[in-house]
């Protein structure tokens, strides 16, 4: 085995073989994050349910009951919770991914490994939370008598993947910028908060007229959440145009994030 270290490597290449060599590290980093997360909190895994559940209650009271937000005829609690489960996966992962290189500064500056392992492992950690929170969704579906359509069931894995890749794309861009520009970490919470309001979590996409609805798709989470509601609650067909636009945007964000990350990753240890 000969390895050559040169000033410029082919940074556009994705080295699957190398990632495979480091699979155990990937496993242990994910395992560390999950373990530490649940060790530190008193209520442990219940926290994963607690956060979206309480948010659901608050949103139901203020947006559903008081502000009378439309919800396409679906009871507001289950309407908003469906959105929140996906939104929570996206927003918590995004903020964690964006800080991942800074938080792991010690190992980034002292050991070599494919850097992409860090953001991916912080997303995986949040999927555990997502799955736990989904249990509540199932309970609510039983309570409100909602049955997913067949297309709805089949589309769920796709929606989860879309959420993961949207997070990864945007997160890679932010996390790489964060290493170099220290004000990014202050912009981020603000950005995520704004994003919540331009994502159809508390309102349905139907408040935008059909002609312009696809524009919402520029935000990949719009397509995901709308399709999740349509499919899981089985109330209507999926808006394929919206989902399609979201999918294309997701790919676009992934490419931008990935290329920027690859361009700067080798210099992380110099600037972090």
């Amino acid at each position: 085995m000969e390895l050559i270290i040169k000033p410029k490597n082919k940074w556009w290449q994705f080295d699957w073989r190398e990632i495979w060599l480091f699979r155990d590290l990937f496993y242990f980093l994910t395992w560390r994050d999950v373990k530490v997360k649940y060790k530190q909190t008193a209520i442990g895994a219940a926290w994963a349910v607690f956060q979206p559940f309480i948010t659901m209650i608050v949103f139901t009271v203020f947006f559903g009951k008081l502000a009378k937000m439309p919800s396409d005829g679906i009871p507001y609690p289950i309407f908003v919770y469906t959105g929140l489960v996906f939104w929570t996966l996206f927003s918590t992962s995004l903020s964690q991914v964006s800080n991942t290189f800074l938080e792991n500064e010690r190992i980034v500056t002292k050991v070599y490994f494919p850097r992409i392992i860090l953001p991916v492992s912080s997303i995986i950690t949040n999927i555990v939370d997502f799955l736990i929170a989904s249990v509540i969704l199932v309970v609510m579906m039983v309570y409100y008598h909602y049955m997913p359509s067949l297309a709805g069931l089949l589309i769920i894995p796709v929606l989860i993947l879309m959420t993961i890749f949207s997070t990864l794309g945007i997160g890679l861009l932010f996390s790489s910028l964060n290493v170099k520009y220290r004000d990014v970490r202050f912009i981020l919470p603000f950005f995520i908060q704004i994003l919540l309001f331009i994502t159809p979590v508390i309102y349905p996409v139907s408040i935008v007229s059909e002609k312009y609805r696809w524009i919402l798709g520029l935000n990949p989470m719009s397509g995901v959440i709308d399709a999740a509601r349509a499919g899981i609650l089985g109330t209507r067909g999926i808006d394929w145009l919206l989902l399609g636009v979201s999918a294309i945007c997701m790919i676009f964000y992934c490419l931008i994030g990935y290329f920027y990350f690859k361009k700067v990753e080798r210099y992380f240890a110099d600037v972090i």
Partner: protein
Amino acid sequence: MSTIIEVNNLGKKYNIGEKENYLAMRDVLMNIIRSPFSWLKSKVGIGGHSGEFWALKDVNFTVEQGEVLGIIGRNGAGKSTLLKILSRITPPTTGEIKLRGRVGSLLEVGTGFHPELTGRENVYLNGAILGMRKKEIEKKFDNIVEFSGIEKFLDTPVKRYSSGMYVRLAFAVAAHLEPEILIIDEVLAVGDAEFQKKCLGKMEDVAKKDGRTVLFVSHNMGAVKKLCGRSILLEGGMVKMEGETGVVVDQYTNGMASQNTFIPFKVKELDVLVTKIILNEESGGAISPFKPLKIDIEIEAEHDVEQVGVEIIFSHEDTSGVVFRTNTKTIKNMDIQIKKGKNRVTCLIDNFNLCSGRYLLGFGLSLFMIKYYYYNLALLNFDVSESMIGALPTSAIYSHVYLDHSWSIAN
């Protein structure tokens, strides 16, 4: 024997200020808006290249399989940068390195240890971070635990460990790393003397019995002499000398700054600048045996630093044997707090009992039993002038140290 590492024309350039001052995106965007042309110029590489700094330049050397190569040089000579490039943490700016084997690097003990996790869990995590496979860790687990000697606390979170235990466990994991090429930075500077000895022994085994290739960076000339057959001396980012360890170490200690030519240096991790180290300021630096010796250390800090141990080490030039070591925390159990701005730490030795000759002054800043922020056994050298004791001058030919004593005879 075959060549396992080949370093050709290696160079590494840093832009000064890139690391010290964190960039704010706001400033960068404002600059683009204010003066788009100069920004474009700097992007295409026209404008000035003001703050450039070559940490390494034209470095060439090869290492044979099974060889233990010492890398010595002052702080800032480029040793750490070289190790970082070899371990692929940072890329070079010019040149290339050919590595014919799996590299494992130990730039720090306990990288990635998580305080909330237990000792057992951290062994796995740390092992994986250092590049071991899960199966490999499982196989060596018992040996690691035995080496560390902390079996009883294996299921305790490491945040409850004493710093000594922490270091033992961390080193035990590292000592079981078995790559073809092992890169070791000053990691032995922590832990108690007995454990340090054990670590040095383990390293000797790695090098001599297992026949693996080791690159060893240290300020401890004794350890370098003991472990390494050949050494290279780095100075100002270039290889100043390469050859048999004894010769290179001599060259290094001879060329060291005497106390008159002290160069201020920065300790990045603490954001402090050590501006001066002065010996016997009042008498113009003259040092005589059996007279007081006062060492003043001036430190400028950017912010308050708490719980730092200030360390002074004297070692004899010829033998590199440490003759005296003191640390505000470990020896005197004193908590030193460095305040923002100028600080002066003074060490006063009432009766300087070392005999005449040339000594090395070492200096360190440490966190009690955990690590050194800065450690250099050979920062300066100083001469102790001769004076008379009894009938003869205090030449070191007789002894290095004079101990207070008396004689008597009973007939």
